[in-house]
């Protein structure tokens, strides 16, 4: 191991309740901004959320309709693969159960895609039954573009790279197809409690 830097702690704080923090993670009070590209700025009158792929009929909602869908307030912990965890974050948005409930599919996987070209893959069961949302508010305010606004995916039970910023739609697929980071060796599933950071974990 590298030599220890006397007195160095970093941004972390003591773990208040270890059962809230997955293995290998550290708590932070910040909300670091880490992006794979420039912040997109899609005007709301051009924004839509599309579900396509292995569905009988693709479906899309423009912004005005989207924010009129039943919404939920979600409080959850988020865990980034770079080892920081943030507890008790609050969001508001539309459940994937609501969105997927409007289409018919036999597919078991989906690829989520975003403005700017980012993709990530998920199993249908990981976004069903109250596990995932498309959120447009954070901490009671409209979601900042830096943090993925106008809307991002939120899947708190998986590593946060799965919670795609600037989300614009999802494509249902028969097979699990690796998204951007998964294609480079990150785990297809990404459960922080099993420390599934990389393929093979």
């Amino acid at each position: 191991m590298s030599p220890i830097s006397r007195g160095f702690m970093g941004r972390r704080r003591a773990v208040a309740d270890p059962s809230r923090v997955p293995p290998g993670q550290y708590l932070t009070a910040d909300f670091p901004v880490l992006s794979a590209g420039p912040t997109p700025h899609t005007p709301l009158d051009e924004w839509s959320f599309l579900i396509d792929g292995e569905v009988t009929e693709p479906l899309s909602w423009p912004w005005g309709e989207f924010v009129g869908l039943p919404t939920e307030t979600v409080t959850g912990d988020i865990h980034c693969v770079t080892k920081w965890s943030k507890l008790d974050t609050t969001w508001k948005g539309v459940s994937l159960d609501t969105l997927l409930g409007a289409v018919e599919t036999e597919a078991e996987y989906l690829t989520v895609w975003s403005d700017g070209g980012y993709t990530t893959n998920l199993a249908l069961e990981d976004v069903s039954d109250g596990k995932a949302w498309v959120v447009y508010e954070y901490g009671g305010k409209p979601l900042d573009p830096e943090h993925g606004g106008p809307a991002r995916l939120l899947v708190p039970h998986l590593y946060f790279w799965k919670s795609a910023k600037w989300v614009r739609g999802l494509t249902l697929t028969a097979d699990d197809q690796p998204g951007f980071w998964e294609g480079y060796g990150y785990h297809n599933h990404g459960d922080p409690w099993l420390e599934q950071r990389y393929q093979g974990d």
Partner: protein
Amino acid sequence: MAGAALPRRLTWQLASVLELVDETPRCKSIGLEVPGWPGHRAGQHVDVRLTAEDGYQAQRSYSIASGPEDDHLVLTVERLDDGEVSPYLTDELILGDQIELRGPIGGYFIWEESLGGPLALVAGGSGVVPLRAMVRHWAAGARTTEVSLLYSSRTLGDMIYRDELSRPDGGKLSVHLALTRAWPPDWGGHRGRIDQQLLTEAIPQPADSPLIYVCGPTSFVENVAQALVEMGYEPGRIKTERFGATGT
């Protein structure tokens, strides 16, 4: 891809803190002894890595502030309020502490006498650090190249190396200073952000084909580079280095 051959491995090594100098309330210069240091070129940087007792690590890059001819390696670090590494370096380090670093790194954003001039250096905030190394390299040599430095800072209190940069040197180094947020009532330098008019005053005209280095926060670098291109400077003679976002 093929690159310029510098046959040497980049390895982490331990450096000892020799000297700590408060440059401004937020900036500290850290003098380091690095065993076997191979020397460096002005404009290069080092990577610094810190390790906590539980193994947690954080790593950042810092431009080398010392010139290649100086006695020892110096880094000048600005304390970022939400930083993870910089507050440790500026607030915790004491003489004799050791930190891991590797370097020197960089082959693009470097200047040495052989590259010629006239040389124009445009700095925003902590972007002055690698340019100061270039000025020190120039000062240690024959000083045949004409050098202009244009340095933009938020306030006078944020300006690093002010005394050093205002020492008279025989006329070949011209220094223009700009304050963007606040200035003393008798401030004789430029007030406000760098604009084309100030660039015209401060650096050689396009016809003289200066070699220009621009360093600072991304938005500063892009604004200046765009202005230079609009003014007719050759893009191929403009070199840029962007730092993570801080204000100027």
